[in-house]
């Protein structure tokens, strides 16, 4: 099955639309995210695991195998870190509840740490990070009111739950046990975050963990299932051709 790229219609209100991403001398228009994986029947295709991240057909592809998974995680951590950095630096942040400020400030630090860890680790591990390291992505937050605590918390819940299900689904794609442990070290903190922001929205409820199914299992999602959520926020064009 051919890999197909899904594009998203340009949001005319978006100034970052006009931003351009320079990678290895190429200048790419950011025309909307395309985190488009192979179709499901490509899950077991043997040849994808050694595909390194980098430009293909003028667009950055996350690659396959362990580097692909780590680059995918790096993209998600960039998103979370960018969001919370905007939150804590917004003029309205000081008007949030003390509890919300405490939690969101911690989340901002944790996500920046995750992002910078992946950047450093990938830079170390990739054969040619100059062309293979995912560049800094650009983001937009349509519908998010950064002046509104409830709007920010709702978005935080979406991002944290997405992170949990993304890492849960990516674990089986990892072949290096050290990377698997690191993913595990991060996903449980994302789940702690998700629990806290969910309870913040609805204290005393079962929201903190009512994501689990009848077996008591949290969701696990493939990269291609995470795409629609991430698509709301990431404006830089890239592909995930070699991830399921």
């Amino acid at each position, binding site marked *: 099955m051919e890999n197909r790229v899904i594009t998203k219609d340009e949001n005319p209100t978006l100034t970052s639309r006009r931003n351009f991403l320079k990678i290895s001398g190429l200048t790419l228009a950011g025309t909307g995210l395309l985190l488009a994986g192979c179709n499901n029947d490509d899950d077991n295709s043997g040849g994808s695991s050694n595909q390194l991240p980098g430009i293909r057909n003028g667009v950055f592809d996350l690659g396959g195998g362990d580097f692909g998974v780590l680059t995918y995680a790096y993209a998600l951590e960039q998103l979370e870190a960018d969001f919370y950095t905007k939150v804590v630096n917004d003029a309205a942040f000081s008007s949030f509840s003390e509890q919300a400020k405490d939690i969101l400030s911690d989340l901002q630090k944790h996500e920046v740490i995750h992002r910078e860890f992946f950047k450093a680790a990938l830079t170390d591990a990739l054969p040619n990070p100059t062309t293979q390291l995912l560049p800094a992505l650009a983001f937009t937050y349509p519908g998010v009111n950064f002046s509104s605590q409830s709007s920010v918390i709702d978005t935080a819940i979406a991002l944290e739950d997405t992170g949990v299900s993304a890492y849960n689904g990516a674990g089986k794609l990892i072949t290096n046990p050290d990377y698997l442990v690191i993913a595990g070290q991060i996903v449980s903190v994302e*789940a702690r975050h998700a629990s806290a922001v969910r309870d913040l929205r609805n204290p005393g409820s079962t929201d903190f963990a009512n994501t689990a199914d009848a077996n*008591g299992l949290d969701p696990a999602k493939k990269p291609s299932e995470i795409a629609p959520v991430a698509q709301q926020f990431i404006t830089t064009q890239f592909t995930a051709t070699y991830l399921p």
Partner: protein
Amino acid sequence: MNLIKFLESFTDDKLYATGTSRRNSFSQFGNLGKGLALASLPFGLSALSNKAFAADITPTPATAAGALQLALTLEYLESAFYATAVDSAGLIPAEDQAAITLIRDHEADHVSFLTTAMEANGIAIPAMPTFDFSGGIGLDPFNNYDQFLAVAQAFEDTGVRAYKGQAGYLMGSDFLTAALQIHSVEARHASQIRRMRGQKGWITLNNSGGLPPQVQVVYDGEESTALGAGQFDAAAQSEAYDETISTQTAVNIANLFIV
């Protein structure tokens, strides 16, 4: 022999900050002084304690089957703990009932899920141990809500670390994803219980949040900043990652509550 069981009883924990709860907690010994005296007995006199050690669990093999066996034993522990708590009249305040009941249900779900999966794959099901939620140190979690939350926190944070520690044994197994899906639910529980105790949902350095020193082992190593990428400070770097524990450490912690 599990030396951790012989560690001296804690004396300055905030759980015992009030005279009433301190005294209540040692009521089985008749009075506080007697409790402390017992706790300070040398190892050779340990037979005087009410704990029997013969039934301690032992480390599971470093295999996928072993990982599931350890996981099931830890889920037995949590499931029995929360089931007893929910059935203890007057223990759980009304505002916490929904949350604790959900956690109870999840732990029962995990026992059921793991048992079914293991049976379907011919993996031996470990017997359910006999639990002593006093921890051998006079805890009374079904009459003292602060102590209940403290033990719950220790169990949840242990579960998070233990599943992570077993993940490598599950690589290539059909159970890896399911184990990760349980792992993140345990982390959600841990965050909630911690916040009910007035703690952050995440672990700062190796701070146990005032738990007895006997369970400090749950937090040892959490202070790691190895993946901190030089950002912010050590506290934030340690919070940003949960750490693993070995099979042996998980077994040692469980054995504190097994007779």
